[in-house]
């Protein structure tokens, strides 16, 4: 039987042994639960005793978006210190003189951090049961949203690990990881809207001479909205594109999102492992 990676086992043991983990889990559920119950209270206040299914759908959307925002805060925060923290605690050099390869180290660090985030997301399932209780949402949509979360957690986690490998200090690594996650979550969306508006202005002759080819701009807009978590989540929830571009990659938006995020994550992990090789490190021993 294949043995579990020792770093992964150690990380899981350390993480789940402390009271901090239970507190973080409780806080996460408290925040998300407060949003759900607050939303229900506001919905019912206007019409006591009645809850319409379309409100259940709105509740589901609100819950999913809240969860995405919270993941944007939690995942980079959990992963941005996994390597730099070892460096600061002066345990990394010892780890690197074992038979473990840098690749094994970065992957086990990612998996252990992501395992905790998956636990957080799984712990919110009872809140989703409230949505099911009132109907209006198909189980497939819930599965789709959870699949989407897994892909998002993976890339955000890889960004955190990469920053942690690249920067010496956890503080700098964390700020950079949050910046990159924000750029991905919000920056790509804003850029897509901006370029779409520019394309429309060009089409109306509002910009002269024409700066970029309209077909190219439409392609870029489509790509940007396909890699933007908010747009893709809305696509899964509402079943339609946020910005109509007329471009078809031959795959649904969520599939493009999954492929790009998985590929980017694997490349980042490869880069992180390379950064730990002797001669590639940006930090010196003596």
């Amino acid at each position, binding site marked *: 039987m294949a043995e579990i990676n020792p770093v992964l086992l150690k990380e899981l043991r*350390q993480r789940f042994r402390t009271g901090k983990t239970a507190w973080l889990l409780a806080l996460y559920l408290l925040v998300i639960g407060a949003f759900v119950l607050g939303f229900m209270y506001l919905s019912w206040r206007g019409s006591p005793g009645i809850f319409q299914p379309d409100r259940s759908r709105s509740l589901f959307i609100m819950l999913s978006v809240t969860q995405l925002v919270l993941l944007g805060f939690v995942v980079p925060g959990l992963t941005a210190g996994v390597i730099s923290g070892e460096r600061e605690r002066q*345990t990394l050099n010892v780890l690197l*003189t074992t*038979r473990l390869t840098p690749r094994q180290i970065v992957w086990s660090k990612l998996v252990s951090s992501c395992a905790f985030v998956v636990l957080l997301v799984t712990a919110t399932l009872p809140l989703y049961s409230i949505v099911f209780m009132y109907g209006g949402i198909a189980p497939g949509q819930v599965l789709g949203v959870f699949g989407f979360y897994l892909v998002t957690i993976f890339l955000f986690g890889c960004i955190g690990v990469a920053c942690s490998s690249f920067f010496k200090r956890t503080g700098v690594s964390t700020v950079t990881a949050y910046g990159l996650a924000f750029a991905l979550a919000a920056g790509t969306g804003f850029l897509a809207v901006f370029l779409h508006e520019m394309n429309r202005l060009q089409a109306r002759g509002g910009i002269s001479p024409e700066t970029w080819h309209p077909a190219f701009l439409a392609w870029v807009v489509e790509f940007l909205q396909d890699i933007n978590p908010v747009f893709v989540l809305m696509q899964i929830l509402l079943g339609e594109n946020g910005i109509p571009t007329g471009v078809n990659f031959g795959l649904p938006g969520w599939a493009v999102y999954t492929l790009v995020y998985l590929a980017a994550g694997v490349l980042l992990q490869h880069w992180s492992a390379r950064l730990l090789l*002797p001669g590639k490190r940006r930090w010196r*021993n003596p």
Partner: protein
Amino acid sequence: MIRFNGICKNFGATRALDNFSLEIGRGLVYGLIGPNGAGKTTAMSILATLLLPDAGTATVDGLDVVEEAEKVRGIIGYMPDFFGVYDGLRATEYLEFFAAAHHIPAHRRPGLAKTLLELVNLPDKADVYVDSLSRGMKQRLALARCLVHDPKVLILDEPASGLDPRARAEMKEIIRHLKHLGKTVLISSHILPELAEICDAVAIMEKGRLVVAGTVAEITAVSRGARQMRVAVLDRAGELAGFLATRPGVSETLADGQEVRFLFDGNQAEQAALLQAMVSGGWPVVEFAEIRRNLEEAFMAVTAEGVEDHGGN
């Protein structure tokens, strides 16, 4: 067992190792000494496969530390000068984790951890969280950690730094025990008398270069240049000092009571001739011997040039 061959390593404009070469035989406890910034930690890091040399080669048991790094990691145990421990792990779990990281089969790990904790005198701390151990205990646990895969070579960078006298004595005993187990130990320390006690040989480094290497006796002999001698006579010590000052190879004579101290630059035959001259001259010589320097004095002597340079800055 260990060979550095013309190793150079730069950190930006700073040259940490400058054509550093050294050979260390199997089963020896070898001390690496030098002032701060001499390049000891860099040399050890290269040996531990943590740094790549800019030039030159280093081998452990014939394995190149760059080309065969993974195999080298299998035969070395490395303890850095500064190291941390993991929170939330017990001593046994800590050792079992590193045993797993060295691919030791799972069924052997609990027994191995127990044996190693006994070796470093921590058997009663097996279930204690490592972050709650004292510094001396952590050092000993780290040494046990170095041994989980039964390495042939131990690289210990300042293993006794920050320890109280009792903990240092315990560490010294453990290193002696490791020598008896046949391990080759490369150890750096600032506490030179202790190194002199446990090391078979030492190398003195300065500014990234090897200044001198050999047994402690050889080092002190090389370092002294002119040896310091002492002659005890029954009387006429002042006259003897005057006589000695006229002899070839003798300098800085000083009469003190019934003895004369002086520096003598000559071989053993010349030393015998000098004694014969004193006896023939009628001085009642009762003792004639060399005042042996210890490792600390030898270290100060061979690195004096460097100290003067630092002082001039």
